[in-house]
């Protein structure tokens, strides 16, 4: 028969120690306290960050509401600035595309036969539609502008009209005139009294000439080159 060992241990579990220098019963509470402290600190930090971010967000919202009218004003100014800049560019372009109209008129006066009298000379160019009646005229953004001249006059010698038309289409006016023609139905007979007391009625012919001008070509030039060009 085996002999059981007569061991009656009167220590309770908490009194039985471990010889290890690091005790679980010390490490566990310390670790638990450290973890709890870490969690509490982390929650405080997160809470503080949240509050800080929240207040910053509120202040930014306030700043944004302050900035909104200023920004709208800025946008308006920016648009005006863009429009003005575009106008300036257009003006520079127009400067490079200007017609030598004065020379044309001088040369025209030389070639008009004596029998022809001008009633009117109209230069027509396309106009852009206006959005607002009182808004400033917008600058054209077209690179090419079609233009035309309309001459209305009278003559007593209808052969001179044909000569005048030929002269216009000659090489001297090629820098302005692309084509010239007399629209159908534009000839009309006119009866008028001659100048003088004993003068009788004079029969003359009213006519119109349409001149299609060479298109104005706008070149985009830089501000610098524009300035140089103006010099």
């Amino acid at each position, binding site marked *: *028969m085996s*002999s059981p*060992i*007569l061991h009656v*241990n009167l*220590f309770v579990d908490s009194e039985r120690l471990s*010889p*290890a220098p690091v005790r679980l019963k010390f490490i566990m509470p310390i670790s638990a306290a450290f973890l709890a402290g870490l969690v509490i600190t982390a929650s405080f930090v997160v809470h503080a960050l949240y509050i800080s971010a929240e207040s910053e967000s509120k202040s930014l919202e306030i700043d944004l509401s302050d900035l909104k009218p200023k920004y709208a004003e800025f946008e308006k100014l920016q648009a005006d600035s863009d429009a003005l800049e575009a106008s300036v560019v257009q003006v520079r372009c127009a400067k490079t595309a200007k017609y030598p109209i004065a020379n044309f008129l001088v040369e025209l006066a030389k070639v008009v036969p004596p029998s022809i009298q001008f009633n009117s000379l109209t230069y027509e160019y396309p106009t852009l539609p206006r959005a607002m009646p009182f808004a400033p005229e917008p600058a054209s953004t077209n690179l090419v502008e079609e233009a035309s001249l309309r001459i209305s006059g009278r003559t007593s010698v209808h052969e001179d009209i044909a000569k005048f038309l030929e002269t216009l289409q000659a090489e001297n006016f090629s820098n302005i005139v692309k084509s010239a023609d007399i629209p159908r139905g534009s000839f009309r007979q006119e009866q008028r009294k001659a100048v003088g007391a004993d003068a009788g009625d004079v029969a003359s012919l009213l006519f119109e000439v349409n001149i299609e001008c060479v298109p104005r070509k706008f070149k985009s030039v830089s501000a610098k080159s524009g300035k140089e060009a103006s010099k």
Partner: protein
Amino acid sequence: MSIVTEKNKAKKYADVVGLEITGTATYAVRIFRTPRKIEIVSVAELPGVQLPNSEEEVIKNAASVVVPRQAAAPYAAVAVNVPSAIMRLVVLKKSPDEDADAALTELFGTSRLADYRIGFVETSDPDAIAEPEAPQAGNDSSKDKAPEKDRMYIACALPNHVAENVAKLFPEARHPAPASLQLSSAARLAAFSRGPVRRDSTALLAHLHVSENQSTVAIFSRGVLVAYRQFPMGNSAVASRVAQEFGLTEELAIEMLNENQVDPSSVTAPVLTTLFRQVALSTEFVARREKSALSGLFISGVTTGIAHWLKIAESTIQTPVEQWLPFDDFAVRSRAIPRTMHIVQEKFTVALGAAIALSEDPEA
């Protein structure tokens, strides 16, 4: 940090120091247990520690037990003996877990004592209990229920304040760490059960331990403790009788008895014969019950002339009697025990038993 698994559980208490704490000295025995043997590694005698006698008595002795390095095993099994401690061999129908009330009545009697720490251990191997006999034909009641057998338990009780004080005696995080608290009388039985009882595990053996004012006899049958008796007579009764007869002080009387200067038989015989007759009555009773004969009586703790005790014991009990020297039953590492301590090895019996009890307890 160490994690105890089933695999290393057996190794956990292989290296243990047993400590018997008394008011005059602390006795330390370090053992190392292997599957084949128990080896005594070191012994030491340290300063005594005063334990509180009552709950009101406050003794500041915290961390006062410092074990020298050679005896400082990882774990310590501590044994104490205070007047208020109680140890009895009780017979119960059910285990103390099942019927605590009956167990406490057996331990304390009618006067229940509060604030005690109590422990029980069955003396016989529960797995070795014989199968109940087959029920008789027609006995219907025995069909449902097996007859309850008496079971013997060693019951120990120690005041709480003493146990709490002992727990504080050891500095923390140093070797040894207190792992077991036992009563000195129980630890002594553990040492004997792993000494002469294991040596002759089929015999009926008795152990008589003589202390200052009382003697205890423990009887083991086939390795199991089957009887435990106390007698109110110890070394002081013999010493005072001799001192009275020869007109000496008790110290001189003890010295005279140990040096065999005179034959004190005529003086000591009446005292010792009375004691041994009571011991004989106990052993004979157990021998009849166990249907066996006493094979031997081992005596320990005698400080008043062991030779006279052995002589009178043999003549009274009519059985081989010898002095029990605890170290004789165990392997001893060379130079583990100084010569001076080998002579007084009986003093280390309790410390040795406490260490063995912790080391061999599979449930510790």
